[in-house]
């Protein structure tokens, strides 16, 4: 388990199996198999085109996250989402690295493009939420990547915004607490915004970036009533990262390598 991605793959697969078996995930079951198959296929194709060695781990993580978050009954849109995720890594690059988290960009583009895909934020319920929170918290501790503070900074900022709003409205604490019981939020915090390849290199920039995403997401969700606000917020803020990296340079993250790969 030297590579943190192995643990991520194990956790995401477990959550997906639980979701399909016990949480009434919508749509036909084969869609959830189509995501990883299509993503691996596209990764293989792009690796051929760019003459790179094939490494299936990162498309697997992207597609498992897609399966957990993005629901559809359409094979076309499932394949499109997988394509956007993988293609964005190879085609949308600045300073030699990709700009957008692949899963995030796929969710943003497909939800904007069609009503045939959707995100189900409330689907998990309290018990599953607590279990996932414990699992992901454990993962964050175990993983000990130097970039973990993005997750914590984001969750702290988001929690403060949601509780601050309740305080301002005079709502009981049960309401913000309910708003935080959201597995999609946890997946977002632990796998998307913290993607070490797309966060700023400098520690201060990373924390600022996390807070900015939380604020933009909050405005989108609570003032413009966009249910997918957080995902849009990350995609809107991601182009700032190359600029932040030039202003505040830091060490670039690299996956522990076994074969030459690219993510």
């Amino acid at each position, binding site marked *: 388990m030297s590579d943190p991605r192995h643990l991520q793959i194990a956790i995401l697969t477990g959550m997906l199996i639980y979701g399909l078996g016990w949480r*009434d995930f919508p749509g036909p079951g084969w869609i959830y198999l189509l995501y990883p198959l299509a993503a691996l296929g596209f990764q293989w194709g792009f690796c051929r085109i760019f003459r790179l060695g094939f490494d299936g781990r990162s498309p697997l993580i992207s597609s498992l996250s897609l399966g957990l978050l993005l629901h559809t*009954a*359409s094979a076309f849109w499932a394949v499109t989402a997988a394509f956007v995720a993988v293609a964005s890594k190879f085609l949308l690059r600045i300073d030699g690295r990709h700009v957008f988290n692949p899963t995030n960009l796929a969710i943003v583009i497909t939800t904007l493009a069609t009503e045939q895909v959707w995100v*189900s934020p*409330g689907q998990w*319920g*309290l018990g599953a939420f607590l279990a996932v929170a414990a699992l992901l918290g454990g993962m964050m501790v175990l993983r000990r990547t130097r970039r973990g503070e993005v997750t914590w900074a984001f969750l702290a900022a988001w929690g403060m915004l949601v509780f601050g709003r309740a305080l301002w*409205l005079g709502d009981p604490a049960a309401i913000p607490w309910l708003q935080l019981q959201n597995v999609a939020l946890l997946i977002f915090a632990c796998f998307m915004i913290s993607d070490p390849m797309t966060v700023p290199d400098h520690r201060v920039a990373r924390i600022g970036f996390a807070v900015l995403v939380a604020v933009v997401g909050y405005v989108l969700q609570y003032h413009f*009533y966009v249910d997918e606000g957080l995902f849009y917020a990350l995609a809107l803020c991601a182009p700032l990262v190359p600029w932040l990296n030039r202003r505040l340079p830091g060490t670039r993250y690299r996956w522990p390598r076994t074969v030459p790969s690219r993510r």
Partner: protein
Amino acid sequence: MRVWLVILSFLPLAAQAFCGFYVARADTGLYNRSSRVVLVRDGERTVLTMANDFQGDVKDFAIVIPVPTFIEREQIHVASTAVLDHLDAYTAPRLVEYFDPNPCRRLYRMEMKAMSAAAPGEGAAARAKALGVTVEARYTVGEYDILILSATESAGLVTWLRENGYRLPAGAEAVVGSYLKQGMRFFVARVNLDEFARTGFRYLRPLQVAYETPKFVLPIRLGTLNAQGQQELFLWTLTRTGRVETANYPTVKVPSGQELPLYVKDRFADFYRDLFARQVEEHGGRAVFTEYAWNMAWCDPCAAQPLSRSELRELGVMWLAEAPPVRPLPKPRIAPPRPVDVFVTRLHLRYDARTFPDDLRLHRTGDKSNFQARYVLRHPWDGSDDCPEAKRYRSEILPQRLRRQAENLHRLTGWPLAEIHRAMGLGEPPAPEPWWKRLWP
């Protein structure tokens, strides 16, 4: 599998009341029990229909609903109760009947094989101003007198309502304050007795409001305040895109498709009530249940015919009014006819302030797959033919099936297994085998 005969029995339509909250104008001990609400949504365009069968004296009836925008006279309408009753019947959980064919016929033998493989005033105005309350508009629509209120602060609004004879439950101020800060206005309706007498009806008709808002939310918080215990809410949504679910609570499909003992036919209402109560309990009281999700063009089996275009229009399906007129809806049949651009979802929840602290935030999905709460009765074949299949049918398949049906009923409703076996004439259920008997086989 072929359907031989489909007979339905409906649930009695549950007792209804408003989702917002009633404010009793005299001490008549009213409480919200259940509500029927229809939300039609297309983009930001929304039509809300609320119905009740308020049991007290109509002069004591009042309702306060937060609305996101100012409402003009033409945005309010009174619908007929019949449309809602029709929608209710069309989407109700249903019981279907099948009859076993003669097992000696070839076609059925193949089915049997497959089955065995897989089991299954002025002064008043000044007072209002002093309290920071603005009566933005007053309308009389049908039998209702309606006020649109805005306010600068919740205490003033609550005081104004109390002074004007509305009985508000304790805790209303905080909730009203939260809505005001979110920029909501209040829609207050009570019964105009003269107009009510003129309508000739003995019950209050559903009120409808049409508005445009990015918020796809059903406010239920005020309703939880004056309720004694839990309330029922039936929410239908009509959209173009597909099923609707809640974004801030889990949405779960009720169990469906199980075979039940034949005697459930006479006790279907009890059965479903107990099934629903058990589902609520299993999900810790914190889930919203989908009872029906279907394209409005058809049904299979039909608990009632799909709604006609004019009924849908009355409910506020605005995009049908805009579409060029087409041929009338085809009669429902087993094969789906040309789909109509309306997808209905029936959600059912049992809630109180503890289990559902926040309003229902709704979320449209692109899911157009059909779902219904449907339960199956299978009448055994009682012919006298004799063939190896018939012997096996009588000695093996049938007893197994009866036991499975009893098991299903027990699991779904929690009714005691011994009682079910008695009612089915099966004799006592087998005592559960001690665990150690299977330990060292």
